[in-house]
């Protein structure tokens, strides 16, 4: 068996036969034999990965006019005397050859030269840049990342034309050899943070890396300890640029239309790119609305159960009587009723997400209108309960980034409230609060800048700063000392 790290042979026949053996005579390996002058050459490509027109115009046509006497003349032409493609690299062993070939490069070998040259002529099918499915904005840009990492790099570079922006490409996945790009601003991101992320990415021992989710557990240092994610995702290039300017590190994975942003902050989930298009007053109002929606989405069902079951004195008398009448008419205990309804909602939501869009709408009609209406009319559930679950569900849609956490938290709160009223709710609050407070990955607190308090940035948690404020000072997540910067 040929070793991947074995050097290429000067004899082109040996190289090609070993390559075929290495690839197991796979049918998507294209080898074109050609004579350039008096030298036997071969162009190797992977089926469907290379653009025929680009390869023909940029590589094959110039080679046809070359009248070479020996392999070194071909090599000199390919490496020194021509500008055949914007991407060109020398190939010395089989590992490089295979990786580049399956990345859409055309590799040219010449008989008598123990190396090859790889030219970028990628032509595989890819999705065009389209509006984002998530994180939609009304006034912001309407483009989003797609599955091709180099396209995504260009989308960021187009917006940040500064020499301080750095892209570092590394390979992840022992078998997939996926391109993973670390992006940061050299003058803003902490050097230590970048080094930690680079090390964590290099230490991923996975066979395949097919999306950002594969590397998230490795990049997020608090992945197994914390309930909230220490890494966030964005599909928007403008959002990625905003995060980069805050001193964060973005990670693009080839094959995934999402960009990982680390470290994530709790307050990130309550910001949108539309905040920057609105006046500070309105943006601030929306931000507060989101915080309120978060509290409702997490705690409202639990609070309702706790107050109705254990602390009815908290309600005004009229409201209490209404609730009493409604709950008396239903056959199930309140906690059971609430848990079943919340779980039913989650089932319908999950069904709506996985189904095709055309059918997804039908789920909401069946679930919301038919089942909900029938359940109320038959007296299985009470109307106030349905209202509470409806408000909760709608509130959760306001903060899509924390959707998964909200779902679980809500159920935990219901169970705690059912067993011990507000005592249980209070315990849950303090438990999750302490969990959030303990998140301190990459030396940045998840609750930053609220706790520990950062006087310069704490206002951004609750208010959108004016652009004059941004002009005066663009702060970073770390607010590190100048010595720590890469410069």
């Amino acid at each position, binding site marked *: 068996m040929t070793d991947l790290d074995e050097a290429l042979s000067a004899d082109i026949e040996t190289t090609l036969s070993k390559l075929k053996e290495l690839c197991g005579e796979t049918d998507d390996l294209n080898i074109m034999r050609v004579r350039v002058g008096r030298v036997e050459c071969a162009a190797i490509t992977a089926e469907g990965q290379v653009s025929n027109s680009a390869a023909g115009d940029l590589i094959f046509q110039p080679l046809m006019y070359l009248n070479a006497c020996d392999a070194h003349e071909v090599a000199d032409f390919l490496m020194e005397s021509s500008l055949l493609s914007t991407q060109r690299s020398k190939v010395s062993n089989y590992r490089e050859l295979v990786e580049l070939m399956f990345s859409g490069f055309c590799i040219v070998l010449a008989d008598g030269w123990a190396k090859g040259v790889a030219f970028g002529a990628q032509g595989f099918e890819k999705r065009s840049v389209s509006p984002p499915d998530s994180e939609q904005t009304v006034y912001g840009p309407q483009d989003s990342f797609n599955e091709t990492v180099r396209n995504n790099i260009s989308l960021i570079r187009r917006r940040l034309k500064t020499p301080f922006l750095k892209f570092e490409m590394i390979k992840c996945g022992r078998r997939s050899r996926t391109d993973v790009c670390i992006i940061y601003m050299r003058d803003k991101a902490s050097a230590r943070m970048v080094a930690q992320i680079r090390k964590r990415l290099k230490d991923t021992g996975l066979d395949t890396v097919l999306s950002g989710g594969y590397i998230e557990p490795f990049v997020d240092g608090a992945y197994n300890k914390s309930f909230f994610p220490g890494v966030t995702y964005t599909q928007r290039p403008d959002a990625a640029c905003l995060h980069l300017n805050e001193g964060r590190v973005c990670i693009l994975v080839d094959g995934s239309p999402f960009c990982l942003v680390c470290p994530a902050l709790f307050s990130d989930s309550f910001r949108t790119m539309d905040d920057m298009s609105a006046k500070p007053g309105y943006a601030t109002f929306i931000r507060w609305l989101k915080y309120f929606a978060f509290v409702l989405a997490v705690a409202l069902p639990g609070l309702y159960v706790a107050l109705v079951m254990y602390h009815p*004195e908290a309600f005004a008398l009229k409201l209490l009587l209404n609730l009493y009448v409604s709950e008396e008419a239903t056959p199930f205990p309140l906690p059971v009723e609430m848990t079943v309804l919340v779980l039913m909602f989650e089932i319908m939501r999950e069904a709506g997400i996985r189904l095709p869009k055309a059918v997804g709408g039908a789920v909401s009609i069946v679930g919301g209108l038919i089942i909900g209406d029938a359940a109320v009319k038959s007296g299985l559930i009470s109307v106030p309960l349905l209202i509470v679950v409806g408000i909760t569900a709608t509130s959760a849609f306001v903060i899509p980034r924390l959707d998964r956490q909200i779902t679980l938290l809500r159920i935990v709160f219901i169970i705690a409230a059912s067993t011990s*009223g507000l*005592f*249980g709710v*209070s315990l849950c609050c303090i438990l999750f609060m*302490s969990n959030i407070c303990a998140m301190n990955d990459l030396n940045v607190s998840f609750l930053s800048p609220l*706790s520990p308090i950062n006087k310069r940035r704490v206002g951004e948690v609750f208010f959108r700063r004016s652009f004059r404020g941004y002009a005066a000072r663009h702060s970073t997540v770390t607010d590190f000392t100048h010595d720590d910067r890469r410069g």
Partner: protein
Amino acid sequence: MKTLTPLQLALTMCCCRLFTLLSEVRLGDSPALFMVSLAALGAVEAVLLIPCIGLIKKTGKAPLEFLYEKNTVAAQAVTVVFMGFFLWDCFLTSGGLAYYLDRFFSTDISRIAALFCAVAVAGYISSLSSSSVGKCAALAFGAFVIFMLLLGVNTVADADIMGLHLAAEHPKESFAYNISSQLSQSRELVLFVFLLSDLKQGHRRSAALYIIIALCMAQGCICLAATALGDLASATDTPLYYLSCLSSSGIAERFDAGFMAVWTALGVLRLGIIIHCISRCVKRVFAPFSNSLAAKLLPFLPAVLSVPILYTRRWKMFVLFAQPPYIIVSIVGVVPLVLLAVSKRRREVED
């Protein structure tokens, strides 16, 4: 890691103090006199902390750190004293939490179950770094302030300033008794001295912040209770928080559940901090066995010991139990004072 900030430490201690204030403090005859006593207590606490802060300023080390550097045996002895005090505090706090919850609030959960749940959450909190606990305490304190503001706004219409009267039968005796009893309940001062070693800088600032914030909050709570509840606040021998549900106005009564939630959060936080401190003492005193199961379970022993007392409904003997104030004075004031004297003498000898 010295990652705790002065404000975080101050707010952590304020949370501990507020729990004691709400559950163990009785106003007595005259709320205004009680407020004056509290102000005087603040001054006493400040004086008590002077040697400790002085020692840190002089040597750059907290009392225990300094002692470990000079004499390991003496340091371990002092650590044992600290640990003993924390174990006692843990016993009172965990048992009190379960007892008051069952006695005064409408929950169906039994005392033992409440104790188990609270200790489980406190155990998790204690496993975190002091910095994380500090952040959590800062948020809990914020929640408490918001809640008190809401309560204040809603009771302002019923407030009667005459509730803050100075009329007491024996003002001098009451004043002295208030200071003495309050000092004996200021168990968080020992926690403060112990956790000072987690501060990188700003020890004096932290002490000042703690005394000022705790005093302001205590005065606010008492003022609110006295003006909203009037004579009821003075005459009833129940914890301060329970007064809200005795209020003649329905508005205050409707806050009872919220009060319980905030009180529980403060109590669990306090318990978590105490267990955290006990764990650290265990690691220092029993260093070779610190990874053993027994060492890990030791901080939870006081909670376990409170179970039979709670179960047999005899916890009332610990209600309003106050250990003599000289224990706190010794740990907080005398030990650092002796260390300060030692450090001065050594310096003189070296010079």
